[in-house]
């Protein structure tokens, strides 16, 4: 498995800012990996994503030091045409990314921009709409879709270009539980069917904690914690200090452990928490019987 994103000693400072937004950050994400980037607002998550996308310094002017590689491309110097085939971004508000007036046109739009022939466009649109579960809605207006469907459409529209890396900026922040499930299912499908590398910026983790390969926590422009979810949440994380919430089941476990309940491990999912608590309760019942 190759490396999808490789960042070495990256420093980014916006124009007219004294302090660096990203400070000597190094990160490696493998091909096909699903990574969630967490941290308080202003910790440099978006700056990092924009740099990977080449938006910094091409669109947003900033001083950039260090090296960034997306496969064998350097986003800092690569042309947007080349870059769009490798890496793309979907923002939290799909409203501003849907630029046409029908589902079909929305998915066809990037393919038309790359001058693909009509037959190829039709084939890819059909394929992508099936993947994201929007088949049959080709003539619907994006405005008439639900929040989850809009986010799926925003992902579909960039997916049509078959990028190898997709950056999702808080993909579920504006969605109800149903919409969140749709996005989760879609991410799993993308990984399974296309081996797509996914980097998601998030404040909430519940929806992905069971599927994510790695969590990277940033603070003040640096990576402060990194590992699989089990590893990251094994030590108590206080939301008011960390700037993000651990899974609520983990928070319950932290509270229980603080009040003297002995748990074998910190659960990260509801399923795991149920089984741990059942064990603790059974053990307690056994003690009281004896």
């Amino acid at each position, binding site marked *: 498995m190759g490396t999808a994103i490789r960042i070495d000693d990256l420093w980014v400072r916006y124009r007219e800012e004294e302090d660096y937004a990203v400070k000597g950050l190094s990160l490696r994400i493998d091909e096909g990996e699903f990574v969630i980037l967490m941290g308080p607002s202003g910790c440099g998550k978006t700056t990092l994503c924009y740099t990977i996308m080449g938006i910094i310094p091409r669109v947003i002017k900033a001083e950039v030091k260090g090296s960034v590689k997306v496969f064998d491309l350097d986003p800092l110097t690569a042309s947007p045409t080349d870059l769009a085939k490798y890496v793309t971004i979907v923002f939290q508000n799909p409203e501003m990314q849907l630029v046409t007036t029908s589902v079909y046109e929305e998915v066809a739009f*990037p393919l038309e921009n790359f001058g693909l022939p009509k037959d190829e466009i039709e084939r890819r649109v059909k394929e992508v709409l099936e993947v994201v579960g929007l088949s049959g809605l080709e003539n619907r207006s994006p405005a008439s879709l639900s929040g989850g469907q809009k986010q799926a459409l925003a992902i579909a529209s960039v997916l049509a270009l078959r990028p190898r890396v997709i950056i999702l900026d808080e993909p579920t922040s504006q969605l109800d539980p149903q919409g969140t499930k749709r996005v989760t299912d879609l991410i799993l499908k993308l990984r399974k069917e296309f081996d797509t590398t996914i980097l998601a910026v998030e404040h909430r983790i519940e929806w992905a904690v069971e599927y994510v390969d790695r969590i990277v926590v940033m603070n003040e422009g640096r990576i402060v914690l990194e590992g699989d979810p089990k590893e990251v949440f094994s030590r108590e994380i206080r939301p008011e200090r960390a700037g993000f919430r651990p899974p609520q089941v983990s928070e319950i476990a932290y509270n229980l452990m603080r009040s003297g309940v002995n748990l074998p491990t910190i659960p990260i999912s509801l399923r795991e928490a149920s089984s741990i608590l059942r064990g603790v309760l059974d053990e307690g019942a056994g003690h009281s019987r004896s």
Partner: protein
Amino acid sequence: MSFEYGLYIPGRGVFHRLDPRAKIIWALTVLAFSIYNGNYMMNPIYGGIIYASALLALISSKPTSFWYKLFGGLTAVILFFSLVFWPASAPRGGRPILIIPILGWKYTDLALNLALSKAFLVLSPIIAIAVIFITSRPGDLFQALVRWKLPYRLAYIPILALRFLPTVIVEIKTITDAQKSRALELEKGSIPSRIRKYIAIFVPLMIRMMRSALELGVALDSKGFGVMKTRTFSRELRWRLYDTFMLCMLIAVYIISLIMLTRIPIWW
């Protein structure tokens, strides 16, 4: 008020089925005839034609009452200002038809004709352009402009503006509601103080729009917009016999009325 497709309202009427290029040519014809002002009778008649066209487009679109109110309001405002201001520059003479006692204003038939013709000079092209937007899918309009060799990056600007017009309207409503909930009373106070109060709407709107514009720019960038010199269209516009026939009919209405009007003796 629903702006699901921007200003476009789906329908199956005469204008909906017409190629956008034919509609643009028709709108240019309307504009040309509105500017040509050889006979005072002409503009009210062209006004009648344009309203018939607008009604045709609206009936087939089945829009909300918003559009009827918009057209009605626009007509009322432009007619009012034309009737107030244009008679002052009307030629001397003519039959007086209305005298306003206190002000001493005298409206002659010539002044009224001048005011009406100036009103329709403004209204006709506006309504024709509105008919185009109501009955054409933005994507088709975009393609029509590109087919006429307009660079597609340039042609997309008005289409994008149209697409996001409803978003801006929603944003204005959200900000207004938020500010009203913070006790901002837009309806009270003198005109200068009301204008000052609108700054509380305008500033956050501009900030939100600038942020959105950046996101939109990045989104377009990641969709490869502008990376190639030319682009393809998955659904191609096709000029049909129907378009030629309908365009000829629409232009013929103007030409015939022009011929008739120039032969009818001026009645005043």
